[in-house]
């Protein structure tokens, strides 16, 4: 069979890439609908990509999360270097480890299935899903306080879960033995396997229609054209070096005030993003491997320069990223990484902060900058079985040049849904008492920052345990061009009138019956001086009750209601 790539015209290219996107979207839906982990089924914490045989990212499902792209690219490097020619039709690879298998944290389990056409390797279909638990010290495998990756759960190097179509039951047995609630995790694995197999069938159908040479040519063309588009986007930034610095609150163990420094140098269509001046890696689990940083930087660039750009290898190839090994943003074994999303979100903030100096209209002020995590666990008094309820909450989105920031949304590299209150209470022995915006949390400004969220939960009929991870609980989300900072977040243990502020990354907090956990996520920064805010916007801030009269008086004293 002729498998030489051929040159393609833009029409065929659009039609074939349309078919490839279709495959990714189908696999995405199949995985979502048949999975068992709440994270996947209700919150879409999963992704699909198709990569070429050398591991280059070609297309992704429309709802793929940027941070997952990094992970799948990383896994492919590991699979290809480890297995090389030992990759066969019917194999399915599984992996999660950040240090030997390109992952970003252990609960994200990567799958990759090679696609063969006429006996020759043509591509891989990959998926990734955040499992509700991957073992380790603490239920949910996401809590703070751990200092080594071994404590965070089961490490899976790239291994074959299927070999030539045969399930390797011994591998599956290891996976199942090391997680809590294995029967549910089995369902997640089944959903991921089914999604791979579906992708393989669909790919074969597309090959049948267009022939492999055209498809291989499409891979090359898509990547090459996206690279050109990315270069054009970068050229919008005036040549120069732009710096920005911010601090993370702490690592939840022993380090506080952790600097992240970026210096972005643009020359023509070239860009270098250098993180020199950033903290060394820390003992707590907010470290991140370089591929997650790459995903975050590319996210910030796409979002600020050309939001409709396809995200594939073409983007990654154009952006040069420098971060010394052993630092917070390029951690080395055995640094813990479970809460790497906090660092990734902060990377986005600092990149946008740097670009604000070049293209002020393109960026937003600092967002809730976090990925506020709350994990409740215990034994369900209704049936005696252990349960783990994990969620990440949104917060304020930074104000924009011409619009207020959005209230109570996920920002940056994540866009996962909340879990309906009526699902939580049916599935877990928990009650949600309040779910609303946090008063005065959006930073004042010509355009104000978005509001943080407040969620109050209490255990029903038993004592549960709370673990959490908050960021921007001390370092507030900054404003831009005179805009004020947004309010920071906090965790509170409330018993009647008594409120105790918990650590920002609390560990194993007992929550007796009758007490509440209050989660308040950060708001976001404002854009432009508060004195320039339009009178009708200020009145709306006041009438809606989102801001107190004191706040309005303090920042918007210039506005008087007409009587």
């Amino acid at each position: 069979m002729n498998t030489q790539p051929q040159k393609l015209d833009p029409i065929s290219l659009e039609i074939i890439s349309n078919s490839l996107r279709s495959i990714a979207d189908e696999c995405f839906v199949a995985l979502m609908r048949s999975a068992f982990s709440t994270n996947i089924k209700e919150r879409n914490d999963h992704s699909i990509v198709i990569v070429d045989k050398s591991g280059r990212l070609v297309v992704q499902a429309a709802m793929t999360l940027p941070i997952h792209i990094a992970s799948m690219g990383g896994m492919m490097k590991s699979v290809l270097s480890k297995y090389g020619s030992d990759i066969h039709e019917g194999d399915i690879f599984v992996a999660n480890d950040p240090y030997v298998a390109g992952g970003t944290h252990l609960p994200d389990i990567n799958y990759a299935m090679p696609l063969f056409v006429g006996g020759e390797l043509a591509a891989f279909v990959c998926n990734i899903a955040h499992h509700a638990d991957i073992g380790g010290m603490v239920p949910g495998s996401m809590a703070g306080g751990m200092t080594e990756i071994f404590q965070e759960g089961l490490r899976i190097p790239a291994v074959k879960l299927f070999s030539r179509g045969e399930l390797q039951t011994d591998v599956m047995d290891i996976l199942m033995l090391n997680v809590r609630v294995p029967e549910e995790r089995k369902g997640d694995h089944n959903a991921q396997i089914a999604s791979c197999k579906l992708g393989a069938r669909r790919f074969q159908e597309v090959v049948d229609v267009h022939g492999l040479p055209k498809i291989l040519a499409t891979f090359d063309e898509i990547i090459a054209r996206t690279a050109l588009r990315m270069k054009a986007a970068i050229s919008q930034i005036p040549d120069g070096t732009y710096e920005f610095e911010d601090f993370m609150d702490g690592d939840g163990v022993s380090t506080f005030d952790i600097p992240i420094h970026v210096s972005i140098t643009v020359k023509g269509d070239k860009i270098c993003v250098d993180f020199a001046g950033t903290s060394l890696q820390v003992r707590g689990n907010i470290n991140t491997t370089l591929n997650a940083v790459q995903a975050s930087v590319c996210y910030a660039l796409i979002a600020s320069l050309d939001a409709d750009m396809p995200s594939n290898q073409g983007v990654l190839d154009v952006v040069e990223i420098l971060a010394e090994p052993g630092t917070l943003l390029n951690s080395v074994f055995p640094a813990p990484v479970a809460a790497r999303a906090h660092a990734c979100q902060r990377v986005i903030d600092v990149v946008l902060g740097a670009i604000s100096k070049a293209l002020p209209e393109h960026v937003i002020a600092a967002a809730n900058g976090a990925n506020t995590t709350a994990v409740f666990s215990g034994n369900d008094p209704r049936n005696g079985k252990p349960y783990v309820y994990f969620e990440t909450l949104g917060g304020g989105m930074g104000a924009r040049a011409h619009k207020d920031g959005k209230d109570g949304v996920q920002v940056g590299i994540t866009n996962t849904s909340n879990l309906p209150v009526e699902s939580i209470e049916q599935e877990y022995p928990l009650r949600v008492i309040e779910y609303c915006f946090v008063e005065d949390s959006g930073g004042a400004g010509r355009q104000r920052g978005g509001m943080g969220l407040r969620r109050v939960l209490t255990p029903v009929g038993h004592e549960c345990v709370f673990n959490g991870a908050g960021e921007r609980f001390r370092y507030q989300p900054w404003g831009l061009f005179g805009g004020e900072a947004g309010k920071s977040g906090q965790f509170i243990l409330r018993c009647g009138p008594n409120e105790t502020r918990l650590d920002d990354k609390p560990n194993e907090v007992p929550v007796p019956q009758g007490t509440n956990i209050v989660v308040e996520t950060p708001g976001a920064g404002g854009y432009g001086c508060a004195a320039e805010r339009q009178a009708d916007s200020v009145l709306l801030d006041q009438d809606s009750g989102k801001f107190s009269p004191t706040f309005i008086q303090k920042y918007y004293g210039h506005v008087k209601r007409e009587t």
Partner: protein
Amino acid sequence: MSWIIGVDVGGTFTDFYATNSKNGTTHVWKTSSTPSNPADAILGGLDALCKHYDIPLAEIERLSHGTTVGTNALIQRTGSTVALITTKGFRDLLEIGRQTRPHMYDLQKDHPAPLVDREQRFELHERMDAAGQVVVEPTAEDIDAVVDQVIASGASACAIGFLFAFRNDAHEKLVAQALRKRAPEIVLSLSSEVQPEFREYERLSTTVLNAYLQPVMWGYLQTLEDGISDRAPDASLGINQSSGGLMSPKTSREFPIRTALSGPAAGAVGAGHVSMQTDRRNVITLDMGGTSADVALIRDFSVDLTFDRDVTGFPIRLPCVDVETVGAGGGSIAWFDRDGLLKVGPISAGAAPGPACYGRGGTKPTTTDANLLLGRLSSRGLLDGDMGLDPKLSIDAYKELADQLGFSVERTAHGALGIVVANMVRTIRMISVERGHDPRDFVLMPFGGAGPLHARDVAVSLGMREIVVPASPGIVCAQGLLVSDLKEAFVESRRFMVDEKGLAILARSLTSLKGAAEIWFDDENVPAENRQLQLVVDARYMGQNFELAVPVAEGNNLTADDLPTLDGLQANFCDAHEMAYGYSSIDDAIEVVNIRMSATAQLYRETTAQLEKTVDDTLQPRETRQVYFSDPENSFETNVYSRVDLRPGHTIHGPAIIEQLDTTTPIYPGDYAEVTPDGHLIIQIDPGAK
């Protein structure tokens, strides 16, 4: 009492389809729509239709109507002022939604602002738990206080949405009672009545949308009902719902949200009717107009339903015909994206300026321009020569793209159509392949002005071998209204395991749901023999969160004896899971979360007068012209036929073009088309076509 009339109100035209239920005579009528008050066009058109065809008004038995009043009020945000009452602690729920952004990368795109401002959202200290047990009983003082707030807000409608009201509606009822007593002028929407199912945000959103539309729909229906009862006092009025069945005006006033997606539903039901007439059990429909195309799946002559939809950015959870829309229509514009890929749509030239060939100032290359310059459309235009089309302008419009590509204008236009087809194919895959159905087991049924033009390429891309073009592709929607059944859906949200105990719960629910259905049948005066019940459960493996609709039983008079055995129910679920996701596991526990009963009252009985069969095959083309089919490099000298000349039994071999008032159908070389006794066209695709 013999005439039944279907009225479909579109953006441009209001279509009528009248049939005499005694002898099967049918008439079609079209009048310009009157968007400011759609009832004017309906009443005016009704008068004109009856006058023209000499139909005595007193002989009208029923008028079935699909209204866009609700949909338009949502698009234009011209609904009423709504107040909302929630459980204490949850007034922001409507605004938080699912805490997501509509676009992952775009920092400027937002979900639409909620329909109820924060200062109109009030809280009541009350609470139910997941089992429907009272946790906090609201006090009379608190209820009074919240009623005061609602009245003071000046709202004309009020939505009430409490947590777990789908399990226990007592608190919603209490508040409603208090409001009705003190402010009877405020119309109410209760989440426990609009859609009593779990997932509070989707239920709340649906309830708020309903409240938002209630006053608008009251006003509209009043005008319409008065106008009809002046003319035909004995005629009944049926309003189409998004699920593809009719409801009474009374139900429409209570639940106007059910009309929000009824537009595409009528087309899908009409297509279902054509599928019966042509005995094609499994059909994929393609309803393509000026700006977009709707696709739907018909299995066993009926349309699939879905429960999660979005209207103008707001989620609704209601039974809706499973229709997907894609931004591909006659006016869709071809353009180069930043990475140099050619795209077509979703931007559309619309009706003004319209495609370049209309000569109304449009210069952008559109789908219609491509069809014209490839000879597939006649320069005499669509509406029987009323409006000529200028191919020269189409060529000019495509010239720039062609030069950039280094292709001929024809090859460029051909490529643009290929992209339009790819977009539609992708959407059809969503409703077929993603739901576990193989399009090759279906026939394609195109309608709308532009559907038949592209059907052949769509069919081939999906491996489909047969196309059915309805006799009047432009009025399939009006026809669908006419044949629609009266329909009502009942649901109980009950979460239980599928085991012997679960079966007992199911039997109890069957009895209570059937009781509710019977009250409804009686209210609507449905004779016993026309009653049909269907019981479906939404089920999932224990631990999953998405449910599959699993049919349990159906019949004229369901009883517990009609329920399947435990094994049977498990097998039904596993089959559905296997079909949808490609695997199932008989050992895993299954749980039910909703039990649904759909009640259907058959209103229409087929009495079609069949067309006369042709005796001798002397079909003459009206003209010939050069047309490009699969090959963009070579055109064919092609016979052009008029659909009015076609008689049952006629066979037309491609290459050919068939023109009619409301559409154009190309027959590709190697394909042939036959005319059915009902006047539909069945195209057999050349088995070698790729």
